[in-house]
């Protein structure tokens, strides 16, 4: 599948924003996040909004985007839109509560915003997981992967902001735990898609298997078309292997080690370590999300490449 930059940026940025909103809504009322929390909320909403606007660049008719909230009964994309818009309400209320220092409102709005964040990221994952023609996406580990990566990137950002606000080891510990869990999940996912059999063959796609093996003789057209550009993107296997290593190192292992270092030493080095960790994690996740598209294969390519 073609890794469109607008969608890679959208899912990474909004994922991190919703992760940050989730942890903030959950931890701030409990007093586990130092400082007022308004900066974290602002960053979360900035990432979410930038991501959502970026996703609209992917549309052929962005001015009609409002129509996309109408079909929530059947479409996960529509449900994602509804969840994303509804989540703004408790998120903004949380901001108000933090601003005027209303703990009771902050607790309720925080929990609702956290629930909204989970719901939105779940819908994002289901958009991909519900697509049967793409076996790498139609997989039980895809939705947990989206949720885990969102929780991890949110925790990394919160840990960085907490360090700036002067301490608080809880977000850094969460970053370590979610980072380790997300890495394990991602490795299990890669292993699963590498060993899974194809869901269809050129023989079943053409009904000609009863004659024997089928191979392409002539293509239907000599130039490109939408299908080849959108569904035919291919990445060299050796590059995929290298990029997976980079994503694992920069996206998960290094940020987790840096967070561990920050918890142990504290002070200014912790601020530096967690800032570097956050930058590495977001960079690594962009590579991971790019791979998520680049490595996915669509059944229509059976007709073109067998």
């Amino acid at each position, binding site marked *: 599948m073609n890794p469109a930059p607008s969608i890679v940026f959208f899912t990474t940025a909004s994922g991190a924003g919703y992760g940050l909103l989730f942890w903030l809504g959950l931890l701030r009322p409990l007093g586990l996040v130092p400082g007022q929390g308004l900066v974290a909320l602002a960053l979360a909403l900035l990432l979410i909004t930038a991501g959502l606007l970026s996703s609209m660049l992917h549309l052929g008719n962005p001015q009609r985007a409002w129509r996309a909230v109408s079909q929530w009964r059947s479409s996960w994309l529509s449900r994602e839109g509804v969840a994303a818009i509804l989540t703004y309400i408790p998120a903004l209320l949380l901001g108000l509560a933090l601003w005027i220092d209303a703990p009771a409102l902050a607790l309720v709005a925080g929990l609702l915003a956290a629930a909204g964040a989970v719901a939105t990221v779940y819908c994002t994952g289901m958009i991909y997981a519900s697509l049967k023609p793409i076996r790498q996406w139609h997989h039980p580990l895809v939705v947990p992967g989206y949720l885990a990566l969102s929780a991890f990137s949110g925790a990394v950002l919160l840990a960085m902001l907490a360090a700036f606000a002067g301490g608080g080891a809880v977000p850094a510990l969460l970053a370590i735990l979610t980072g380790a869990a997300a890495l394990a999940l991602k490795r299990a996912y890669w292993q699963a898609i590498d060993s899974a059999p194809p869901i269809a063959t050129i023989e079943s796609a053409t009904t*000609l298997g009863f004659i024997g093996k089928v191979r392409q003789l002539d293509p239907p057209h000599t130039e490109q078309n939408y299908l080849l550009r959108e569904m035919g993107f291919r990445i060299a296997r050796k590059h995929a292997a290298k990029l997976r290593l980079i994503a694992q190192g920069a996206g998960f292992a290094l940020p987790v080690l840096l967070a561990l270092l920050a918890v142990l030493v504290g002070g200014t080095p912790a601020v530096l370590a967690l800032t570097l960790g956050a930058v590495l994690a977001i960079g690594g996740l962009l590579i991971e999300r790019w791979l998520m598209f680049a490595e996915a294969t669509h059944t229509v390519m059976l007709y073109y490449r067998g």
Partner: protein
Amino acid sequence: MTCLPEITPGQKKLGLVIDLDTCVGCQACATNCKEWNASGHSGPLPDTKPYSAGAEGVWFNRVHSYEAGEGERGRTVNFPRSCLHCETPDCVTVCPTGASYKRIEDGIVLVDHDLCIGCGLCAWACPYGAREMDEDEGVMKKCTLCIDRIYNTNIPEAQRQPACVLTCPTSARHFGDLGDPESKVSKLVAERGGQPLMPELGYKPVNSYLPPRNRSSVAAKPEEAAPTPMDIKNPLLRWMDKVLTR
């Protein structure tokens, strides 16, 4: 509404039956489809850089060509690929705006180009590559089963068929109601053992493909060739052979 209509027994299911035995791969169906659909319901259909390298455009019909099997059993099969108007099409249910829909009255899967936002999710959800984005208009386009022909009372009744079916020089394409077991197309499918594409994905395609006929009983071994006039080197004998052959 992108929820699928409830399927009732005996429901009309308009679709195509494509004969892989007689298709000669002439591309007439693809060409006439493009010609008809460049105006009307789906028009215009884009053609980018039509007169230079990198020419491409939206087509609802793509004719592939495959080799199947080895040796004597092996054969070339031309394979037209278009929308199968599935009974349970995910391209409809994933649509966030309601632009994609399946008609209750005849099962045709259509796109309302005024509602489409061009997100492309329906094209991802179609295993068969039936949908292509019109990048000029930013909306998705697909085969309409020539909805602007088959119900068009302004054209002679015999011509109220999809453009691809009308133009096929070998009558490899048939159009009709596959929900009615007594229809001509349903009988053809039953008689020839018509097959759906990728049934394992569970989309329940309405269109059916008739398999190439088994030729093993027809194809006898070629007889040993008699000498041709050019094999005879002596000019006199060659002349005699020519005269006697008359």
